[in-house]
């Protein structure tokens, strides 16, 4: 992966595959150069034994192949930038993936286009809604795909003006918060 948003997308697709109906993505910047990312879903969850193995690249839930690289790649991206990576879960309740990193570290990946990522995830599944919080010190920007769907309905997928506006709306609000 060459951008952090790609990792986020990858994790959210896991949530969708686990039948989640609500995914909350939090990005927080603090102390100038620290970044915390968490993805919380209300999907099937992971049992305790699997949880121990989940970051192992040779563990996967699929049957077609013996490797599963999503979480292990994300862990690598965090640890190489002085950060931490953790997965918590309770069967039938939630799964939470938390990542942190030092953005001033030379090996820290660039963030990438958050607006595009959030838009694409909003239309990834009809049954899964996305809440996105971007926090810099005390200010928070919140995006809720349910709110957007109430406003624009099917135009979310078919109206080019709307699609473009949503991406710019997210990106503009975020960049205004940068310190």
């Amino acid at each position, binding site marked *: 992966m060459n951008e952090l948003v790609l990792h986020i997308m990858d994790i959210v697709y896991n949530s969708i*595959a686990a039948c989640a109906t609500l995914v909350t993505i939090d990005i927080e910047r603090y102390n100038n150069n620290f970044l915390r990312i968490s993805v919380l879903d209300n999907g099937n969850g992971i049992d305790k034994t699997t949880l121990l193995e989940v970051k192992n690249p040779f563990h996967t839930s699929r049957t077609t192949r013996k490797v599963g690289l999503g979480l292990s790649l994300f862990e690598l991206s965090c640890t190489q930038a002085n950060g931490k990576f953790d997965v918590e879960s309770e069967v039938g309740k939630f799964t939470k993936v938390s990542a942190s990193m030092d953005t001033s570290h030379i090996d820290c990946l660039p963030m990438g286009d958050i607006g595009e990522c959030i838009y694409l995830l909003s239309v990834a599944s009809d049954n899964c809604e996305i809440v996105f919080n971007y926090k810099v010190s005390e200010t928070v920007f919140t995006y809720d795909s349910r709110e957007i769907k109430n406003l624009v309905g099917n135009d979310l997928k*078919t109206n080019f003006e709307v699609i473009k506006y949503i991406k710019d709306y997210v990106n503009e*609000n975020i960049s205004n918060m940068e310190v």
Partner: protein
Amino acid sequence: MKSLEELKKIKERTQRNVNMRDSVDGGHRVAVGMGTCGIASGARPVLNTFVEEVAKQNLDNVLVTQVGCMGNCTKEPMVEVIDSDGRKTIYGEIDEKKALEIVEKHLKNNEIIDMYKISSLD
């Protein structure tokens, strides 16, 4: 500063009232592989190109969907196009430029691009 208030106005001004259909009568379904392998090899800009072009050109009988790993990771980013008669075409190693070509040739003119095709099923 952009706001949701303005988004509402844009929607009212440009509203298209398209009924999204699950079946694609006379149209196509495009499935972009968004597994870890797909994302890592550049599926996001490909997906974005399909979503934007289909909306921009008002191709109302094209449905763009996101799917998981398609099982041939070395050929990612992969795109599967399912025609209304059930014919499936799988394209491999697609980038934004090739995606545009698929929109123009396959989605608009039903013309399969053999150069990018890795397999097909009737």
